[in-house]
């Protein structure tokens, strides 16, 4: 059967609600669009500068794509469990220990995400008093990325918490780590 959302990762399906699949799909598309967007603007920047008629506003657009791409990617990576980790100690755990540690980890992420939402929102409001040059767009237009991303990260973390408690964090279809790594994007 063909997958409905081509960019949604099927791994860790037991931790996901199908209703949020379109959100992951949109975030992945946004990742591609922002990368395409700022690749294009940087290229146009090179071209217009070489022609002796630089478009100064291009740098603002580039930065907007860049920042939104990072925060969209951070949110998508939370649902896909793709973030960089120092250890995968929980994968070796089973039973109640795993449940406790996985829950604790998600609560830490949830706490950080809620800080991004609330304090990011305060920064967003303060950003209306600062402006980006040369367009004089309020800096709030960039600061908005942080609470938006925080809200999505919090949503995906709650999704994993609820499903983890219902279905267990390990899931039924455990696959060897090497096979997982081979199909996934690699960290830096």
């Amino acid at each position: 059967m063909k997958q409905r959302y081509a960019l949604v990762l099927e791994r860790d399906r037991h931790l996901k609600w199908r209703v949020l699949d379109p959100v992951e799909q949109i975030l992945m598309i946004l990742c591609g669009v922002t990368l395409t967007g700022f690749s294009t603007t940087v290229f146009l920047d090179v071209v217009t500068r070489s022609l002796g008629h630089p478009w100064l506003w291009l740098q603002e657009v580039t930065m907007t794509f860049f920042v939104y791409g990072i925060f969209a990617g951070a949110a998508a990576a939370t649902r896909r469990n793709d973030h960089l980790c120092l250890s995968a100690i929980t994968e070796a755990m089973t039973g109640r220990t795993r449940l406790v540690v996985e829950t604790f980890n998600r609560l830490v992420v949830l706490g950080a995400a809620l800080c991004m939402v609330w304090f990011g929102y305060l920064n967003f409001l303060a950003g209306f008093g600062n402006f980006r040059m040369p367009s004089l767009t309020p800096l709030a237009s960039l600061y908005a990325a942080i609470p938006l991303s925080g809200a999505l990260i919090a949503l995906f973390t709650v999704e994993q918490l609820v499903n983890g408690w219902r279905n267990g964090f390990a899931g039924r279809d455990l696959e060897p780590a090497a096979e997982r790594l081979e199909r996934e994007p690699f960290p830096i």
Partner: protein
Amino acid sequence: MTANGLIVSMMAGLFLVFGYLGVPVAFSLIAGVVIGTLFTPVSLPSIIAQLFNGIDAEPLMAVPFFLLVGELMTSANVVVRIANLSQALVGHVRGGLAQVVTVFSMFFSGMSGSSSADVAVLSRTMARPMAEEGYDAAFVAALIAAAATIANLVPPSIMAVVYGAIGNVSIAGLFLGGIAPGLMIGFGLMIYCYFFGPAGFRRPRSSFWNFTEATKAAALPMMIPIILLGGIMTGWFAPREAGVVAIVYILVVVIPLLNFGHLRNLPRDFAHAGLIYSLPLITIGAASAFGWMLAYLRGPIVVSGWISGLAGNDPYKIMFALVALFTIVGDFIEPIPCIVIFMPIVATLTEIGGINPVHMGVVLIVTLAFGLITPPYGLALLMASKFVGVRFSAALRASLSIYVVFFATIAACIFLPDVVLWLPKHLFPESVGCFKNPSGPGYICP
């Protein structure tokens, strides 16, 4: 211990505890710094604003482009041509495929700035043929991991971009300065394989015709390092612009000519690359917040005071102390947050010792690259052992003797500054602080 010292220790402790329990690095850093901030008069919105300020640096925009270059080259399966060229070059030398792995990595490092990408590509391409020829799996994993660290040294190294952007050091200088140490590790590994590695299956030397064919097949992708480095050195492009020009070259020339059918997969490649680049950058944002709080608590001043108390202003002792610090820290945390968090200490000590910032940068990048194959958090070795299907402890044992190559390279970089500085001084003198001679031709280098 002072109150500041306690808060710094608590933040660091929380970060490590969260991190080793499996909380993603970015969120471990955010959680650690937010909890630490509660014990200071600093406002939490200003800490969260650092997430943005940390990534609001134009040079960092090079990171996604260099990652995209690697992603496109890998997913379009163009790298096989480079593997074939490597085989034509050194397949006949003692060590056989082990030599091919090293040369392949030296070539591919010029296109991908990330050692993890190199580990993935080398494992997918070379692990199976090496297993079929009877190479010990632990040795294969150790060699692939060690060879992949070259990507962090030679352009377009992501570590160099981050180091340059955060430390305000010339990225072009770091790129050029990293080439000789990268080659030293590459040739060091080849010498190691020749004398101490398994003999492997000796192939006949490639005929001139085969070699020409392999070179012709790999010519288009091999232009990428030339575009990247040439554009930057001639001053035509900043690093991020060179990255985007390389991408345009791949999209317009390499993929249409070498793998036309792959064009329909480009949207997926861009989406994946967009996801991949956000991972280190959100970590950089979080590490900036962490580093900012450390600086507020005067952590860097205290630590640099300790180090300069021990080492005085002797540049060699300072570099040794920092190499020791980065070796220890790099064993436990990711190289990129390590660079961001410790940059204030490095900058202070670089100034105290009168060390060229590019020299210091390259020495520390080599050290951090070495950290990728040391326990307990040797990311490259961990990945290689998983890909190859061998236990980490076995791969670690096999890599112990390979460490000699890294010790020798780090020592050469410290004691012979020209190993690092000779190339930038001759090709791009401004990048290492040289300036035009006001009374004649040439440059004056401090």
